[in-house]
Every structure is written in C-alpha cells, then in structure tokens.
C-alpha cells in the first residue's frame, strides 16, 4: 500500500452533500473494469456531458483544479453501497485526501485500506476550507499526517493505529496474519463454548 506522510497539493471544493458511492462509480464499472482503470470513470455522471466530452461545470474539469489531490467534501460523503471501487476510482484520479464533516461508514473504512486519508472536521472548519479552496488566489493545502495538521495549524483526529498504517504503508492482512495463533486459540475455545456455530 502507498504510504501517506505529507501531502502538499491543490484542494478542490466539492460541497455537495450525501455524495453516494453509486454517484462516485456506476455499478457497470464494478463488474469487470480493472482496478487501475477505474479513475477514468469516477463521478462520470457529473464529469462528462451526456454526449461525451468533459462537463466544464464539474469542479475537477476546471483548469485550476486539474491535478487536485485533495477534495473538500460535503457532509456524509461516500454514503451508500460497500463497493470499494468508489475508493479505487477516487484514488485512480490521483486524489489522496478527503476532508468532510462526515463520511459513509463503509466507505470511510475502505479509504484506509487503500492509502487514502479521510479527515473528519467540524462543519464550520470544512466550510472555511471550502471557502479557501474556492478563492481566486487559492493556495495549495498541506496535510501533515504525522503532525495531524492541515496548513500547519488546523488539527485533526485519527486513530493512532490507522495513522501508523498509513504512515508506514502497512497492510491490515499482514498485521492480522501475525496474530494467527491468537485466532486459532480463540476458535478452539469457541468450538467448545458455542458448538452450534460449527457445522457437523
């Protein structure tokens, strides 16, 4: 997994509320499109015109936001389906960090599995960042995971375990496989305690 340490990049404002994972990536793209190609289809219903071609109104199509790697989002971003392709699609566009007042819970967990940092901040702080990102003379944002700050002063919370995994690019399965003996012991005791759970 890609490490996440410090990111200095253009931030795009995307204040729409309740952006759902069907909107982020259509279900047809989840059936056979290789992971690496999903970025092409992120937000396709808003990003492209019905007849093809870029929709100039879509924020990430505007010249000043091309190359954005941070999205400042509206409340409850990533609500809906569990499809991890939504995270793969956003990451495939080069986005590494999402900032929002709240996230869809399955989407939120999926972000950490893919080196994408979702930051939860109070609505007023997100509004302020949206304004900064929208300003004509907007400057790139700096997200420092080790210090847990945005632009040097705005602090954010993150679980220490998830922070370490992102900083070091650790993979959750690898960490859990190291606990295999504990799982075996749990399972053995459980077979005695709750035999009806196990077939035969």
């Amino acid at each position: 997994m890609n490490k996440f340490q410090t990111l200095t990049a253009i931030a795009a404002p995307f204040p729409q509320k309740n952006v759902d994972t069907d909107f982020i990536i259509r279900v047809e793209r989840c059936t056979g499109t290789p992971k690496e190609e999903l970025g092409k289809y992120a937000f396709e219903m808003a990003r492209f015109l019905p007849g093809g071609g870029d929709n100039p109104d879509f924020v990430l199509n505007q010249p000043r936001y091309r190359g954005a790697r941070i999205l400042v989002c509206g409340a409850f971003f990533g609500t809906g389906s569990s499809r991890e392709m939504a995270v793969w699609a956003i990451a495939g566009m080069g986005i590494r960090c999402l900032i929002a007042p709240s996230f869809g819970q399955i989407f939120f967990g999926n972000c950490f599995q893919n080196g994408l940092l979702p930051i939860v901040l109070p609505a007023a702080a997100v509004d302020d960042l949206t304004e900064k990102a929208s300003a004509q003379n907007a400057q790139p944002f700096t997200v420092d995971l080790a210090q847990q700050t945005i632009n040097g002063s705005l602090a954010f919370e993150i679980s220490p375990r998830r922070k370490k995994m992102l900083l070091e690019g650790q993979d959750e399965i690898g960490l859990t496989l190291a606990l295999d003996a504990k799982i075996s012991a749990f399972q053995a005791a459980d077979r005695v305690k709750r035999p009806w759970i196990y077939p035969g």
Partner: protein
Amino acid sequence: MSGRTLFDKIWDLHRVEDLGDGMQLMYVDRHVMHELSGHRGQTEIAKRGLKMRSPELTIGSMDHVVSTVPGARGGNAPWADKMIETFRSESRKAGVRVYDIGQDGQGIVHVVAPELGFTLPGTLLVCGDSHTCTNGALGAVAWGIGTSELLHVLATQTIVQQRPKTLRVRFEGAPPRGVSAKDLILALIGKLGTAGGVGHAVEYAGEAIRNLDMEGRMTVCNLSIELGAKVGMIAPDQKTYDYLKGRRHTPAGARWTEALAHWQTLPSDADAKFDQEHTLECARLAPQITWGTSPEDVIGVDGRIPDAKPEALAYMGLNAGQPIAGTRVDRVFIGSCTNSRLPDLRAAAAVARGRKTAKHIKAWVVPGSWRIKQDAEAEGLHRIFLDAGFEWREAGCSMCVAANGDYVEPLARCVSTSNRNFVGRQGPQARTHLASPAMAAAAAIAGEIVDVRSF
C-alpha cells in the same frame, strides 16, 4: 453496574484481541458471498498466495448479475456468465457451499442467509454488500464490508473494526392500516436523516417492532445503512426461534437446545444504557413515499412535495408544493433485499388481485429467492400478478442495483420497493420513488402515485 445491550453482549463474545484506540480484532462466525464482490475477493486472495481459513463458515449465492428474465438460467451477458463461472469454480476449489442458479437456496444473499438458517441470533456476520445489516433482524451483529475487508475475512476469519456506539429506537403504538414495516423505517429515516445513525449500532425495539413478522423485521433492519448505521438489529424472541427451527443450516437436536439457551440471554437488559435513544410514534403515520434522491427525502403519500433540495426536484422532474399523489408513473418494481419476501408479495398481490395495471405501466415482480418463487407459485400469487399484467421474474437483485442490465429508462419514473433512490441508481437519469410493496402495486394499477388506503 448497569445492564448490557443486545449489541454489547454479542460484540464482547467475538473480540479476539484489542488492538488499541478502540480498534478491535473481531471473530467472524458467518460470512456470505455473492458473485459480484465474491469473485473479486477470490481473485485477490489467489494473487496474494493466501488460502481461506475456514471455508465451512462461508456460504455463497448468485444475485447481483444474474438474469431475472423468466426462465433464464445465467447472466444477461457473456461477462456476467464468466463472472458467475469464476465464482462457482473458485468456491468449489475453496470448499465453499454455493447455492447456485436454479437451486433451492439461490437468491439475494440477505434473503437466503436467513431463509437457510445460516444467520443465527448472537452471531457476527459479514458480507461484501452494504445491506448485510438486514440479517440483524434475527438478533445478529451484521454489516457490509469492502473488497479489502472481504479478503481479510477469507484469509483470517476475522475483521478489524472500531466498536460503534449504541442507539435504540422505540417504535411505539400500532401502525394504522396500509402502514407496513417499510413505512416505519422510511419515516424514521425522514425524521433522523441519512446520517442519523452514523457511528452507531441501532437496536429497533417497541411494540410495533415486536408485532412485525420476521420478514417485516428484515425490512426494517435492511434500511439501517440508509440511516447511516452499518449495524441494525432486533432482539430475538419466540418469533425468531419459530422462524429458524428446522431450516437447513439451523442447529438441531441437543445443539438447538444449547443454542436456544444462549439466545435467550441476548436481549438488552432492562437497565441497559444506550448512547442515544429515539422514539417514533406509529399510530398516526401515513404510507410513506420518497420524493427526492436520498432516502431521507420522504413524506406521507397524502403530503405535498416540500420546497427543498432544488437539484433533487429538478432531477426528479417534480414541483415543490404539489401533492405527491397523482404523479404519473412509468415503471413499478417489486423486489430487492428490502421487500421481496413472501409476505411482501402477498401484500402486493392483495392490491393487484382482480385488477389490471394501467396501460402505460411496465410492472415487475422479482422474488427474492428461488424458494420464495416456488412458495408464491404454490399459493397462486404469480397468477394474480400475471393476470393483472405484471411480469413474474426469476430471483435476483435486478432493478434495485441495475448491475445485470435490468434498468429503468432515462427520465422514466419508477415506484420501487428497493432501498436507494440515488441519482442514476436504477439506471442513468432514472427517477426512483421508494415505497412499500402495497404502495408499489397500487401505483401500478392507478398508473400514478396513489394512497394505497384508498384501495
């Protein structure tokens, strides 16, 4: 010390290891796979050279990409057939029992897991689909997972999770005629909003919940994710035990007795503390219907379209201030993991019986499982639907998620018993109104949104 909640009791029994800062390694008793997320997980596990740890604790079925065309026995396209075949053969290799197309046990995963008795009270169950919360209706802690987590479950039979807070919602009073489980949960989402349950495991309680049949409880729990909660659950009771007894995967004999004794200890203690509590009065509710592009955009069918969310109204082609009843409809879809079980089909058939769908309407009934289809046919429900002009189709997810080519046409308006009215969910530019099976059947007959209480 105060008592413990249903959720606390189950959660604590499954903790393998505390990983610090609220993250816990949780043991997974039950894992359900479908071909769409399942085949990705199988491909990834092979790529990484890992093996399934406990294949006997997983079952699979086919639902997302299967064709629901009457008589069909596969996918709707070559890519779908290929996915189904990959899922079938990889499952066989790994030793996972798959309930395949055309077999008893096939159907929408959240319909068949309870139907097969695979979902049990007190279990921790996960599946690569957000509506896994449906299984909480049997008193399980169940939630939907992504592909990476699915791979983690296959390889380790565990999942890393932050312990959620608890929220109890009491549904008090007796719902009036025409108000079903679907209306109860839609009304709650309308009240609390789609983020109302974020970070919480929800327990549904109260008189109106206790009075629901098991299928109605599944409908309520199904929409927990639309309330923002990954987990929704209902304490097991005699109805739960009666429902489960004798099903294919349900324990039998001495194991049943032992399991039952454990299940009876699970309901929340009288003095249990929840982090949040809400109450919904049911006695004066009207049948609910959505008007916008989020499940929280919901009103009583006797209400007027609110002056809110102009973008949603534009997408839906609706005007603020107008009554929602009388809105012309093109399509009706009765199905999905929310509302495709036998009592749902009976409620729709009771409305359709002896009537005809409006001429311009295309209406579908898609049973949730192979078994439900057989049982409904044994009761003659299919006859009622066919005589009224509905299509009677094969079991699958169909037009709820439109992964199999079952679409609503652009700009067409559909009254649907499914769970999501998102932009483009039922097809590009499709306009979805969520409602109960009886309301959907009534819309098919009237050709417009109509109050089922007038039938």
